[in-house]
């Protein structure tokens, strides 16, 4: 992950209402994107440009050295971009498309579409052309574009040449949070093609259509994007474990240990998308991001693994961005709930791992682990009432050293989709405030008509708690105290405190 401190300052774009169109714009835009030349919407945009006074862009450095392209260049393209995202009469983009709160685009340096969260990439060529033009304009000034804020819209760029990732969001997320989303998208793409393969292809074929290699991968990316909008695991960068009695989890770990073979790096047991236990090589940790990418892949395609035992290459960017691990994936039950995953460095290990699976299953059965997991699953989601603090409505708790989190299910008043989304937005906002790279906070307390919110970052954990709006500060503080004790007491059940090694 890039260092937050590299966001230096903001370079304000001239916000005069009259837009000077640089004479070379047409050339530049068309040389950067072959597609946009064929789009009739391009030529007569000047009159319709709407400039908001607080449009601004942030780049790696805010140097205002006179470069090959002027500020006007960038501001012009930025307005064009805003307009493409908002104007009604522009191209084929439907109004429902424009109403989507959060867009994610992936394109190549040459402006070729790779992925778009909403709508077909092919229809978005003019939009992508402008994006590439902005990136290259800023690049010409030996700078890297990071974000643009235009009205209530944020355009966030992640440049990972040969790929360019762009998010456009009108939600409450901070730029920093959106960047993290883009990193997840990037890592998911890398998991399919690997960094070295990507670089190899684009070093010789600048115009390669990456979608050829990504067929069938859209479902991973779609699933990821939808989850990022509602699942705290991406906000917190932590995984959720299936709550399970500590001794039972240890049995599962010991069972996984049975799979020890040459070149086996990790064995993971997952139930309904939640980690049950992990066993790993002594020398290697399974990075949280890698684990999340892996879990997303399994969750997004559970039913396609039904037919038997699956075998597929996967590149885990934190583990090794230039090589593939080979995943043996199988479900241990008919309901496709409990999934066993082996990750091996040996691409010929499939049948060896089939044998390992049998050993693991035998041991799991001996300790009746699968029954215990099913039982645990049926009561996995606890309600906040279990904590026994009436004024506490919901919370997220993350243990920092092991990157795991726990939270109760959403209950009254967050029982419907709208309320759930609102609460998630509040968590995002609080998280954004306390993790503001410019001014991080330790504690944040806010009261509204609807609820009282508290966020607290301590040395070992992060807590986000939601209370009734009537709670007093002292009540909230003592409630947090009780909550922390409640969690501590159940630590062994809520978290995977020990990972075994082979």
């Amino acid at each position, binding site marked *: 992950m890039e260092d937050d401190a590299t966001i230096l300052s903001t370079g304000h774009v001239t916000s005069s209402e009259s837009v000077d169109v640089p004479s070379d714009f047409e050339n530049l835009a068309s040389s950067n994107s072959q597609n946009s030349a064929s789009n009739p919407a391009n030529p007569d945009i000047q009159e319709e440009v709407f400039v908001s006074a607080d449009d601004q862009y942030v780049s790696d450095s805010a140097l205002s050295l006179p470069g090959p392209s002027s500020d006007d260049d960038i501001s012009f393209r930025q307005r064009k971009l805003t307009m493409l995202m908002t104007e009604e009469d522009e191209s084929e983009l439907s109004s429902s498309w424009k109403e989507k709160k959060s867009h994610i685009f992936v394109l190549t340096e040459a402006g070729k579409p790779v992925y778009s969260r909403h709508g077909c990439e092919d229809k978005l060529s003019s939009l992508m052309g402008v994006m590439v033009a902005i990136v290259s304009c800023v690049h010409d000034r030996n700078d890297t574009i990071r974000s643009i804020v235009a009205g209530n819209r944020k355009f966030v760029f992640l440049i990972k040449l040969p790929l360019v990732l762009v998010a456009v969001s009108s939600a409450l997320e901070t730029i920093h949070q959106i960047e993290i989303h883009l990193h997840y998208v990037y890592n998911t793409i890398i998991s399919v093609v690997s960094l070295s393969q990507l670089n190899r292809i684009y070093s010789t074929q600048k115009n390669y259509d990456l979608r050829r*290699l990504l067929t*069938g991968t859209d479902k991973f990316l779609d699933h990821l994007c939808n989850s990022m909008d509602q699942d705290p695991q991406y906000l917190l960068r932590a995984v959720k474990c299936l709550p399970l009695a500590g001794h039972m989890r240890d049995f599962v770990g010991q069972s996984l240990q049975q799979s020890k073979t040459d070149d086996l790096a990790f064995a993971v047991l997952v139930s309904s998308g939640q980690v049950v236990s992990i066993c790993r090589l002594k020398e290697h940790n399974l990075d949280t991001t890698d684990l999340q990418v892996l879990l997303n892949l399994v969750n997004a395609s559970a039913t396609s693994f039904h037919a038997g035992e699956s075998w597929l290459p996967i590149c885990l960017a934190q583990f090794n961005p230039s090589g593939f691990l080979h995943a043996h994936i199988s479900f241990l039950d008919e309901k496709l709930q409990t999934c066993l995953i082996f990750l091996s460095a040996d691409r010929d290990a499939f049948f060896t791992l089939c044998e390992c699976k049998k050993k693991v299953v035998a041991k799991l059965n001996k300790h009746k682990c699968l029954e215990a997991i099913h039982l645990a699953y049926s009561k996995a989601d606890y309600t906040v009432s279990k904590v026994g603090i009436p004024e506490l409505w919901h919370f997220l708790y993350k243990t920092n050293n092991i990157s795991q989190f726990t939270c109760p299910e959403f209950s009254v008043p967050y029982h419907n989709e709208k309320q759930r989304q609102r609460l998630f937005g509040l968590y995002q906002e609080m998280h954004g405030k306390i993790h503001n790279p410019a001014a991080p906070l330790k504690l944040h307390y806010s009261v509204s008509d609807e609820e009282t919110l508290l966020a607290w970052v301590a040395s070992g954990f992060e807590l986000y708690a939601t209370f009734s709006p009537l709670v007093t500060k002292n009540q909230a503080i003592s409630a947090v105290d009780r909550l922390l004790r409640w969690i501590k007491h159940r630590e062994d059940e809520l978290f995977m405190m020990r990972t075994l090694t082979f």
Partner: protein
Amino acid sequence: MGIDNNRVDCKVVLLGKEYGGKTSLLERFLHEQFNEASPYQSTIGAAFGAKRVAVNDKFVILGIWDTAGSERYQAMSRLYYRDAKAAIVCYDVTEQTSFQRARFWIDELLQNEENCKVYLAGTKIDLVQSHTKPRSVDLHDVCDYGEAIKAAVLETSSKTGENVNDLFLKIAFDFTKDPYNFEKLEDAICDASVVNVSKADNNRRNCCHR
């Protein structure tokens, strides 16, 4: 499944265009299921399934690889058809391009594994029978082509199950007929989940006798 994967006798690989019906064919054979309700799930990577089949008094374990058929895994598919005894190359009888693609796979396969026996499986024949979709691959064209490359041709439906067992039984039967394979076969104990076939059954519904 209770099958000892180390003793896979006959390695079979499913090849063909995405959406051609490979996974459904395997699912029908292994689990006697067809899942029409759930939306299409493209196979990622490859999946393996094994089933024991009785041929006369012998047992053959068919170990079947279902591949994704997308470009990303093209290099990998070599891994799957290496040493394969049989390849089921699927094409959708209602889709002409899938048959062209099947020819591509066969060329590719035979370049690398010249001894692998090829079975051309036309899929989704129920769609033609029920007039849901028109046929766009002519059976006689396929048979002519099959004859040229010494491949058996069967039209199947994973939905109704038509010809699916016959296809796999034929593979097992042909396998036992090859004397080289025969040495390696071991007598096995009768198993309830086994499909039985007698010599008389074989070839019964094969459209192109050779």
